[in-house]
């Protein structure tokens, strides 16, 4: 186990170096020259040249890369071409919004997904099962940005239950402590701000979580069915334990092991989905910001975001893999080729 952990952790390093090279070369080598875009079409060649010089874009690419990496290791990801402020500041000003959204999405997805999955497995071939399967199928097929649009149409436009975008009403914004508005509202003891923030959060979180919810439903159902077919479940039933107890005490726990891993992996992919959801709901997080920065060639910011997301993604995968190894010691890693 320890050997596996060390090996798995060491594998992260080359991956991260590779990611930084990929992103760097995409942004600095293959992308069109940002100078005319940043300075405007009417900038003359001299000012563009001066700008390139000031931003280090005239140095050899390898020099640029090493300058970037040595900066990154010290926590300096460069400065935005537009705002001139540090990329790290730009990112961390928006990051809590995205994390708040993603956490809410994965919480919704897990609770509803596991619930539906268990119900579908226990009542196999019932109407619950059919509904669960249909839900899981539509959930992976519907584009999340369209789902968001439908939610806004129905829940905001028609029912007026939830606001159609934003994180909180401006006047209610709590004093910033953590950047997570719901937590900040609690710290400030402001119940109105808390419920307002929650109201803003529900629709985008549900839209973002739908895909994961579908995957979790499927996974829970099949995992639960597999467990319910095991001999020890038959034994438990034969002993006369009530069905509820069999499911809750004997079947649920082992069934949730693979589900846990899936939830972990889904959390990573939510960060990608946030790009779209945030655009739909005008959520002032990192996703919408990324798209904006890409459109205006603010490469240092894009690089920083992609690197950060990759670090999170890789860390989550690592934790999920290790958790899986810990929870299910039967896994033989030497023979495990694909998952």
């Amino acid at each position: 186990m320890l050997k596996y952990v060390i090996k798995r952790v060491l594998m992260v390093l080359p991956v991260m170096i590779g990611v930084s090279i990929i992103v760097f070369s995409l942004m600095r080598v293959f992308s069109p020259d940002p100078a005319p875009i940043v300075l405007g079409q009417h900038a003359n060649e001299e000012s563009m040249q001066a700008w390139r010089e000031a931003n280090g874009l005239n140095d050899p690419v390898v020099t640029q890369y090493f300058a970037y990496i040595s900066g990154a290791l010290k926590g300096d990801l460069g400065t935005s071409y537009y705002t001139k402020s540090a990329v790290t500041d730009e990112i961390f000003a928006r990051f809590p919004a995205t994390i708040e959204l993603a956490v809410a999405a994965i919480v919704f997805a897990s609770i509803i997904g596991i619930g539906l999955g268990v119900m579908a497995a226990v009542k196999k071939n019932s109407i619950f099962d059919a509904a669960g399967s249909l839900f899981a199928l539509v959930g992976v097929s519907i584009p999340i940005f369209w789902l968001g649009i439908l939610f806004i149409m129905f829940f905001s436009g028609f029912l007026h239950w939830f606001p159609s975008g934003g994180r909180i009403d401006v006047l209610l914004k709590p004093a910033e402590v953590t950047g997570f508005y719901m937590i900040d509202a609690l710290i400030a003891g402001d119940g109105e701000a808390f419920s307002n923030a929650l109201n803003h959060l529900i629709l985008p979180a549900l839209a973002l979580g739908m895909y994961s919810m579908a995957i979790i439903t499927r996974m829970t159902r099949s995992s639960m069915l597999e467990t319910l077919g095991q001999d020890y479940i038959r034994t438990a039933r034969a002993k006369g334990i009530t069905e509820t107890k069999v499911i809750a005490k004997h079947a649920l726990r082992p069934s949730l092991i693979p589900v846990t891993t899936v939830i972990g992996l889904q959390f990573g992919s939510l960060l990608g989905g946030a790009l779209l959801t945030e655009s739909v709901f005008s959520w002032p997080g990192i996703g919408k910001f990324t798209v904006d920065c890409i459109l205006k060639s603010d490469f240092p910011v894009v690089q920083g975001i992609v690197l950060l997301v990759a670090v999170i993604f890789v860390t989550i995968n690592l934790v999920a893999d290790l958790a899986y190894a810990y929870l299910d010691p039967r896994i033989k890693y030497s023979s495990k080729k694909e998952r």
Partner: protein
Amino acid sequence: MSEWNQSSLDEVPTMGSESQKADETFAMGIALPDGEIPVPDYDETLHEKPENQWLEMWRSLRANRAALVSLIFIVFLVLVAILGPYLTPYNPIETDMSSALQTPSAQHWFGTDQLGMDIFSRVIAGTRVSLTVGLLAVSIALTTGIILGAIAGYAGGWVDTVIMRVMDMMLAIPSILLAITLMAALGKGIDKAVIAIGLVSIPEYARIVRGNILSIKENDYIAAAHVVGLSDARIIFRHVLPNALSVIIVRATLGISSAILDTAALGFLGLGVQPPQPEWGDMLGRARGFIFQAPHTLLYPGMAITATVLAFNLLGDGLRDALDPRARIK
């Protein structure tokens, strides 16, 4: 949609364990329309290799009503894509500001958009774009993925390590983020979207092919082929890959659906097809400001995406079940 669910309720025996149900390929096809992950413990002897795996696959697929309906729907979509220009009542890129944002009517079945373009015509015309991009992107991913995966799996050693580590690096970035980063480098446009979407899904195929090749490689007939003195390339393409083909086809079918979703997402963000060319995601992105004023502009393109993606997902699931009841998602 409710039809196949109903059928699964009626026809599947409710008694007995999962493994018993999986015994009959016939029952299996119906029992698993939702593409569940089938339960692994079943009697191997009942699934001896059929004489013709394609025939067997087709039989089993035919018994899966959902997959069959999806297949018919996909054929229909392909026809719409091919015959598109003959089916559109209006020119899909002709603007008419005097009739902008009209609700659905006899003249404009799906209404008109913010520029007065006929939404029905645009949805029809968008079919061609979505299917083409989906197919092309998957072809790029498939070809590159098969070659890389085959080399990695067959060669092993450091070649394998290098290739698969590069794949890991690509997988470390969420695919949609990688795709839009690529788009930033390549520039906007549908041809670039095809490349971006194709590139980001290479690792999936490379992994699957590599995994399959690793297991096929152990077979005696491959050793025999070596002994006879066949070249490596010949062994890979004639003896190893055909055995992994069915798995690849299933993955590719599901891959088309995600490629179509990604295309729509790029279009929605304004990075894909450039106007006035009709593309479903782009239509949604541009009509977004009219969400309360003219909701119909946002309804039909979204339905088209969902229905198409759903069909490819159902077909892919059906193929997977038809192919191997033990096959797992991803």
